[in-house]
């Protein structure tokens, strides 16, 4: 071989997600958990409701994971995690990190009550929502995280989703929890940094990770990382933090904001969009971005 050089490792080396799992090719959810666990380490417990990860880890009696998973009912990621944390503390384990690991359906929709309850109580858990923007596990039905205009089986082309993506980060900020952050699987160092930062706080921490889904988005598996980069660079999914519900910090400044067209072109779920629809979506993105910048400046 060539000169003595070390492999560059910008994120921790330890793998706590195992190979042989059932994720699709190019799965963003697989990337998301891989990075979050690299940040948290093995002393972690995951509470996973119905979502892709309820299946990815492998069927009974096997699991691909090096950390324990408590599979729980769909709407109970946050309440189960709250219970696990309380139970562990009562038996003397104050070290283990308890993570609720849920998809967008189990967070934005059916799990929102339990999440709000936990956040209001400021229960000491990290809630991570890996967002692939639809109910993917059950076959690509819309959730309130599905962006306007996206095709899903329940928002077919003739009956599109005409409501904007629910602003879950604002909802979580309204609970005045110590830490809310957005992240993308295409910026693993950022995922690791934010996860570690979340762990340093006591109370409810919420991390919203954009996780590309080639299967549901009808995109090429090899484009998964590209999409996660584009979505940040065009400000559709900006990377920022909110501390105590008030302090907004943009963690990735965007100098050269890209239009959304190239991003949409790579995904079959947007293929049907007409130019005027794309214009409307671009306007929505621009408005959201301007609003966010104002909040960040207000500090």
């Amino acid at each position, binding site marked *: 071989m060539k000169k003595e050089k070390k492999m560059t490792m910008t994120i921790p080396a330890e793998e706590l997600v195992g190979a042989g799992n059932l994720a699709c090719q190019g799965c963003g959810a697989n990337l998301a958990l891989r990075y979050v666990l690299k940040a948290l380490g*093995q*002393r*972690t*417990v995951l*509470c996973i409701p119905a979502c892709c990860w*309820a*299946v990815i*880890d*492998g*069927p*009974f*009696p*096997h*699991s691909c*994971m*090096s*950390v*324990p*998973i*408590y*599979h*729980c*009912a769909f*709407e*109970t990621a*946050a*309440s*189960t*995690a*709250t*219970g*696990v*944390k*309380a*139970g*562990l*503390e*009562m*038996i003397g*384990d104050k070290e*283990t990190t308890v993570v609720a690991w849920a998809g967008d359906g189990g967070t934005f929709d059916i799990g929102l*009550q*339990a999440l*709000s*309850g936990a956040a*209001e*109580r400021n*229960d000491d858990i990290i809630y991570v929502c890996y967002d692939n923007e639809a109910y993917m596990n059950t076959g690509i039905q819309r959730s309130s995280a599905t962006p306007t205009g996206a095709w899903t089986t329940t928002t077919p082309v003739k009956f599109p989703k005409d409501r904007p993506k629910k602003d879950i980060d604002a909802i979580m900020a309204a609970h005045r929890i110590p830490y809310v952050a957005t992240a993308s699987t295409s910026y693993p160092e950022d995922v690791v940094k934010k996860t570690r930062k979340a762990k340093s706080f006591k109370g409810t921490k919420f991390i919203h990770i954009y996780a590309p889904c080639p299967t549901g988005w009808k995109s090429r598996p090899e484009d998964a990382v590209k999409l996660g980069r584009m979505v940040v660079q065009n400000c559709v999914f900006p990377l920022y933090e909110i501390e105590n519900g008030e302090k907004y910090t943009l963690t990735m400044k965007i100098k050269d904001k890209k239009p959304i067209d190239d991003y949409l072109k790579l995904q079959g779920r947007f293929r049907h969009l007409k130019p005027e629809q794309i214009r409307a979506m671009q306007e929505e993105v621009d408005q959201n971005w301007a609003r966010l910048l104002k909040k960040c400046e207000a500090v």
Partner: protein
Amino acid sequence: MKKVIMGNHALSYGAMLSRSQVIAAYPITPQTQVVELLSEMCADGTLDAKFIKVESEHSAMAACIGASAAGARAFTATSAQGLALMHEMLHWASGGRLPVVLGNINRAMAPGWTIWTDQNDSLSERDTGWIQFYCASNQEVIDTVIQAFKVSEALAIPSMVVLDAFALSHTYEVVDIPDQAEVDAFLPPFKPPFRVTPDDPRAFGGLTSPEHYMELRYKLQKDMEKVPEMIDRTGREYEKRFGRYLGLVDDYLCEDADIILVTSGTAGYTAHVAVDEMREHGYKVGNLRIKVFRPTPFEIIRRLTKNAKKIAVVDRNISYGHHGMFAQEVKSAIYGHGECKPVFAFIAGLGGRDITPDSFREVVDHTISHDRPEEEIGWIGVKR
């Protein structure tokens, strides 16, 4: 130590003496006093537990499940709509083999809104794989909670301890509150063989194919079948220490009875008045008060009704399209065992309508004067 306390507080004391470690509960009339007292006990340090003020009963059971899975002793209490809201999670606790104990105040299901007692809420959960205890006195309540933890933890099956709204929950009675040290000796700390811990990382409750699901549920049933014997054994141990034996039923003069009343809850004590009166008039009546509904105490029901000529079940509940659920259980218990005797299925006291000695007089009179039931249901006290 003897104290005059309400039924709800008997639940609280039971949970406290059992050293519950995580309590997750949501208020609902008439359960509120259970959690209020537990909240106070946690606040003033009488009970070293985490009290999670959840935002719904569904979350209450989810949190108890999480805590129990982590290896802590978990307790909650609810009633009617709250228990119904927990339904999905009741299945999760039993299928997950977690020994959570729940106190349920029997309250009728809405609509219309009601806070008064009947048994439809708990009996609607009879298929969920929970042990069900029906109490008729505050002493029974506190004794049952403590023993429920022991039985549940021995067999990894959750329990519910059920008491009538107001008739028991808000009735003050003298209760002998066991001594904490004695309870500690009787009920050691919860030490499950497997729990959620990074020291032994496993996935709990993952996708289970037709290849595997049935054996897991077969095991649950097999362990349920061990419950009656475990309740008896635990009961004898409890009797040695505390002087009171609970058992699966309360047998009042069943041995030589021609007619056996089958009852549950506080109505079961009211039945004694009727039994005594009937006996004075020369009718040999007995009362079989069922204390454990699930698992069905088949053997005891068969044994105690063996010599009777007729059975009259008084249900404070109804399975619409059929009749009362205790009556269903009694019929299924005796079917195919010995001669087929008539079972009269009565329904009384729905929605908190009073069940009085007069109600039982009517029941017994009807049973005496009919060879066999003429109608599916004998309705007691309906304004007709």
